[in-house]
């Protein structure tokens, strides 16, 4: 350090004074170019190659397993695999997926039975979805859904309160946050920081990132690969069964399928019972007006996306469980349903409003039980508008 005048000092310290680094990863232009070419090729080629190598069995009544609900890369692959002009894709949340029922107790299963074809109606529902997330799922991971017949289910549950509509100001944690609009339209209760929002946007655009997420979901128990090696059994002191396991050996190259005997679902499960069996009474809902509902607007946009892609969309409204509603709530609900129906008619969107199911066939406010789905499928198939829509070229 000298005491020279300011002008006599060099503009920058000579390079020799400052060592580059303690490591030797110092790439020149050519080496950077080579590195970027290799990395780009790996990133571009791995997901499609993987799709060819990995076994993915989707037979009749297939639905994305609950544990893979957030594997959006797999969802996209599922749609690519099942899209066919002769098939009907049934889109929606857990009502379509079948929260309380087994794969052979869902709406798509019974529609197939009514149609006499085992694989005509495809269950493309995902557990935990809601219109804001379904919009993101279809926009970014459902690009293969084009020129297809689509049944889209509207579940009134999402406008039963500002909280379910996600329009409250207090922070709410909800499923599938990476699918919802990250910046616009603004979701007041979604308080993720800018980094989380931007990384969600990147994941949607870079297929390789979504593929990495698929690996984590399918083979490493929804954990990062490194986190998986540290997975604890929850004991005290914690034991980590994976510490000496080879992570690569986990990748069996077969997408895991749902357990056949899911104890939480199906007629034998303790959850599979009418909504009033637990002593629940009538409920008052704090309905959200449609013109201010985030979920309804997302549903409208979703219909637009599907139609812009040349799909023939049929909207099924409910049937929501009116039996559990207090009289006042029921009146508002019917008004909302009529408004929705009017909007769909105005926009020439085919839609059905199936008759209310018997109270005993509902598990909660919106999910039917197995027999409920059976009856609903029968009623839908018996509707002239539906048959006309199915036969339409």
């Amino acid at each position, binding site marked *: *350090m*000298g*005491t*020279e*005048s*300011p*002008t006599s*000092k*060099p*503009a*920058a*310290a000579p*390079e020799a*004074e*400052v*060592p*580059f*680094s*303690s*490591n*030797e*990863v*110092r*790439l*020149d*232009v050519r*080496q*950077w170019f*080579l*590195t970027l070419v*290799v*990395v780009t090729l*790996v*990133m571009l080629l791995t997901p499609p190659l993987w799709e060819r190598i990995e076994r993915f069995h989707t037979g009749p009544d297939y639905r994305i397993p609950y544990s893979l609900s957030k594997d959006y890369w797999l969802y996209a692959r599922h749609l690519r695999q099942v899209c066919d002009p002769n098939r009907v894709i049934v889109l929606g949340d857990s009502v379509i997926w079948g929260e309380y029922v087994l794969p052979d107790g869902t709406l798509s299963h019974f529609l197939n039975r009514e149609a006499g074809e085992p694989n005509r109606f495809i269950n493309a529902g995902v557990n935990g979805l809601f219109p804001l997330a379904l919009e993101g799922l279809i926009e970014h991971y459902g690009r293969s859904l084009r020129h297809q017949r689509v049944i889209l289910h509207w579940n009134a549950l999402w406008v039963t309160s500002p909280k379910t509509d996600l329009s409250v100001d207090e922070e709410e944690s909800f499923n599938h946050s990476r699918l919802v609009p990250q910046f616009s339209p603004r979701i007041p209760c979604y308080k993720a920081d*800018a*980094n989380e929002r*931007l*990384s969600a946007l*990147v994941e949607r655009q870079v297929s*390789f*990132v979504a593929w*990495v997420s698929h*690996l984590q979901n399918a083979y490493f128990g929804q954990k*990062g*690969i*490194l*986190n998986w*090696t*540290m997975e*604890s059994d929850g004991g*005290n*002191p*914690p*034991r*980590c069964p*994976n*510490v*000496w396991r080879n*992570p690569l050996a986990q990748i069996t190259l077969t997408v895991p399928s749902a357990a056949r005997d899911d104890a939480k679902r199906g007629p034998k499960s303790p959850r599979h019972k009418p909504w009033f069996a637990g002593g629940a009474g009538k409920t008052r809902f704090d309905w959200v007006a449609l013109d201010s509902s985030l979920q309804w607007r997302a549903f409208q946009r979703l219909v637009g996306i599907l139609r812009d892609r040349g799909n023939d969309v049929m909207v099924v409204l409910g049937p929501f469980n009116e039996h559990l509603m207090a009289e006042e709530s029921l009146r508002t609900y019917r008004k909302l349903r009529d408004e929705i129906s009017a909007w769909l008619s105005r926009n020439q969107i085919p839609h059905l409003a199936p008759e209310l199911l018997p109270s005993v066939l509902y598990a909660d406010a919106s999910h039917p039980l197995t027999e409920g789905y059976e009856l609903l499928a029968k009623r839908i198939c018996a509707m002239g508008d539906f048959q006309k829509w199915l036969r339409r070229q």
Partner: protein
Amino acid sequence: MLFNTWPFLLFLLVVLPVLFALGKTRLWPLWMIVASYCFYGWWNPYYLGLVLYTTTLVFLVVALMERCPEERQKADVLARLTRLRFDDGVAKAAFVASAAAVLGLAAVALAGPATLRPTMVALGVIALLMAVGALFSSRGIWLAVGIVNTLAPLLFFKYARFTVENLNAVLSGFHVPVKLAEPSTLMPFGFAYLLPIGISFFTFQSLSYIIDVYLGKAERERSFLRFANFVCFFPILMSGPIERAGHLLPQFRQFPAVRLQNFTDGASLFLAGLFKKLVLANYLALYVDRVYESPQSFGAPALMLATIAFAWQLYFDFGGYTDMARGVAKIMGFDLVLNFNHPYLATGIGDFWRRWHISFSRWILDYIFMPLQMQWREWRAFGTAAALVVTFLVSGIWHGAAWTFVIWGALHGVGLALTFELERSAFYRKRVPKAVKQVCVFAFVCFTWIFFRANSLPDALLIVRRIFTAAWDGPQIPGLMLAAVALVWLYHVLCESKLRGVLQTRFVRVGLAVLMMLGLFLCSSGGGTFIYFQF
């Protein structure tokens, strides 16, 4: 804003093109300041006031210091105080302004809202010291005023709670019915009492400038914009490296010549740093956190391995941050000092400090150890040893207001004092095998890290006790983690061996870069803040 986040990438995509576009104009230093303030304000815009305070204060103090005569002259303080008879008009203006500020602040403290009283008193004391500096107008007084006033925010935000808690404990021990107020109650406008990120770093950097100018080792910077850039240069604002005025300030005098190599070198550094942080440091943290959160649940092997893992975690975390900082600065055409150089291959404790957090080690060596050693030179070896212990005690306290950091610093100080002569002996340098020295130093450093990482002093003591007494059950450390650390260690060994040339081949460089990039996509676990932000 963190380097390892998407907002930073967007920030850089805005800052760099505008900076290069403004390179030939006089606006580029202003743009750099805007960028740096946005970078810092992203975390907490209110604490930008502290950066601005430090910048303005140090700039003014050094400007006033320069107006004082080199040699001590007797001043008629009474005449200055009573009749405002100053030889220098600027000193007079400084005195009048400071005195007016003291009076104004005192008035607000007395008549204003009670919540503002502590802040007004603190600012009043700072203004009073400035008035005293102007009144005496000597370089030494300005140096002292500059140091005290620059350190004041750091002392308040970092050490007030620790001091108050300990004083209250002492007072209560002596049954004195006095309880000092919790520092958070002194914050104005209901602001939270949070440690401003990077305060230690920009404070130490500013202090080095005042001291260097006082000692004649650096020129006073006449441009406020250039000086503000020196204090708030965003790559180093949060966690260093702590730059010296003589090295960094000249680089702001004209727009640096940016070549293609700046981009390739900068990107290389950034990639290595990102990989160290997002893959290696975050992975090791999983194990370290689990063991250190409940040390009583783990046996000796787990506690030892967690300590070793922490040693590497800290290196990857802080070293990774520094690599990224140096990389970003390099892309903009600025060179920052090397901060880490294979510290775990050190062959002595002194050697370790020449390789670990080099910019900080040099700071405490130059500004604490050297003056103390000079002061105590008559005591010869004992004076040097005492200076080392005191220096590293300060280093420990700098790292954090907790007894664990004090002990960590003391251990290094005592270790250095005890091995200072040994490391210089021919026997140690020539007879003791290098590997033995490296293992011994690494073991010592790891032992001290226990105090650095433990959540509390009782935890640290428990860990030390259990390492020697607890059962030897399975450590539950992933084999992949051990393999990763072993490979990095091997890489370091190769770097310092005759085989370094192998690592410089095109194939190895490209291969490692590809592996690091893919590793970031495949294995990075979230973002996470940096350990050294808390200091």
